[in-house]
């Protein structure tokens, strides 16, 4: 990280692992679970949150000195809602099918607690550049989990990644299917998202004992 000072690069790197918004801070879980049956949807969601959180953090940081503290929640919600409307309209314009599949979950970025959490905890007390880095870092930490969950669910559930056949052809029995693997349709159902995230948390805490809760 030659471009950034050590303190600044910490803002980006910390949320990727030891201060991950999903597995450690327990924020923004809803959307992380609901749209991960497909890798493509997970990536789109991660990019949307990256945009909203990065831009939102900068905006809030710029106006932090003129927001009356009593109405700051409403101001924050308005900023997020405006940014999410942009994302929603862009998605509708360029990838209508995908925006249909994500459905209400794009709108739910507004109430994604990572965003409110970062506004409250960071952007209200720091300058725009550092807020931007913090937003990007946390959105990346969120995106990483989303992509891991999406990867395993799509791979094991339908044998594809981003819609391409990876495990071979299930009907002609090539690739992994020739040695008897069957697509596990259960991975595509809602409960498995929770269990996959649970396993990710398990792995993470086994590797880093300091994170274990009592």
């Amino acid at each position: 990280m030659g471009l950034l000072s050590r303190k600044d690069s910490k803002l980006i790197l910390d949320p990727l692992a030891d201060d991950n918004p999903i597995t450690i801070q327990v924020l923004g879980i809803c959307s992380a679970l609901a749209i991960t049956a497909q890798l493509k949807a997970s990536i789109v969601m991660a990019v949307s949150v990256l945009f909203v959180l990065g831009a939102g953090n900068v905006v809030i940081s710029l106006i932090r000195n003129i927001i009356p503290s009593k109405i700051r929640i409403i101001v924050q919600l308005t900023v997020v809602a405006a940014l999410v409307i942009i994302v929603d309209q862009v998605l509708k314009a360029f990838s209508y099918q995908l925006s249909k599949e994500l459905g209400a979950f794009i709108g739910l970025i507004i109430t994604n607690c990572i965003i409110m959490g970062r506004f409250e905890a960071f952007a209200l007390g720091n300058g725009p550049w550092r807020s931007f880095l913090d937003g990007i870092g946390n959105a990346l930490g969120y995106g990483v989990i989303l992509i891991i969950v999406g990867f395993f669910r799509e791979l094991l559930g339908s044998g594809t990644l981003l819609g391409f056949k990876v495990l071979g052809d299930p009907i002609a029995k090539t690739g992994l299917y020739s040695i008897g693997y069957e697509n596990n349709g259960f991975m595509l159902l809602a409960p498995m998202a929770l269990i996959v995230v649970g396993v990710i948390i398990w792995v993470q805490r086994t590797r880093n004992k300091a994170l274990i809760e009592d």
Partner: protein
Amino acid sequence: MEHIELFFKSIFIDNMVFATFLGMCSYLAVSKKVSTAVGLGAAVIFVLAITVPLNWLLDQYILQEGALSWLGEEYASYDLSFLSFIMFIATIATMVQLVEIVVEKFSPSLYNSLGIFLPLIAVNCAILGGSLFMQSREIPTLGLATTYGIGSGIGWFLAILAIAAIREKIRYSNVPPALRGLGITFIITGLMAIGFMSFGGMLTGGDEASKEEKTVAVEKHEGSKENENITLSAVETSEDKVIANNIKSK
């Protein structure tokens, strides 16, 4: 009959927590004790029961395409639906604030016991999700919207009550250290979600006719997406099931 069906459907089949993962953050954060879980659950039922019908009215008379025609002929072509996020969240924030003021005035003890959780409801995705699903599922009447709001609230209440009770008991069991706390809560929720999936056949009773209808809908959906072999709507778990069945049959 319609009301009863929608009511049970929104409690069990489309349960906010187990089928669509809404309000997970507060579900995980507030479920350590049964007493706080009950308080938050009750507040969620209350706020959902108010905001869903209110937002239904907003959607019907202001936001939908052509909804402004009651103002006059020249407004009939307006489509303000892109504003729905901002309008919904404004309604919700206002209602939460109003509820807070009313509770503080009439029942200070309840107000103190709920504490920080009341304002937190404004950013609980279950609340906004209720309104957005109400919009995307095109619920036809105000009465049904109210039923839907109350039903989803009760479903959420049920989920947080159940997990809080389990978490109170699980403290005495020997969970692997790395799974303690958050990890095991996720896995229990997953298992509970598997259990709740079995409610899926509750209203159809395994009736083939209604299943047929769903499959057709999915096929249409797939057809529009050219040749991609699997399409998934993350929102409609019932579609998920049909697709999973298709995969198995392949």
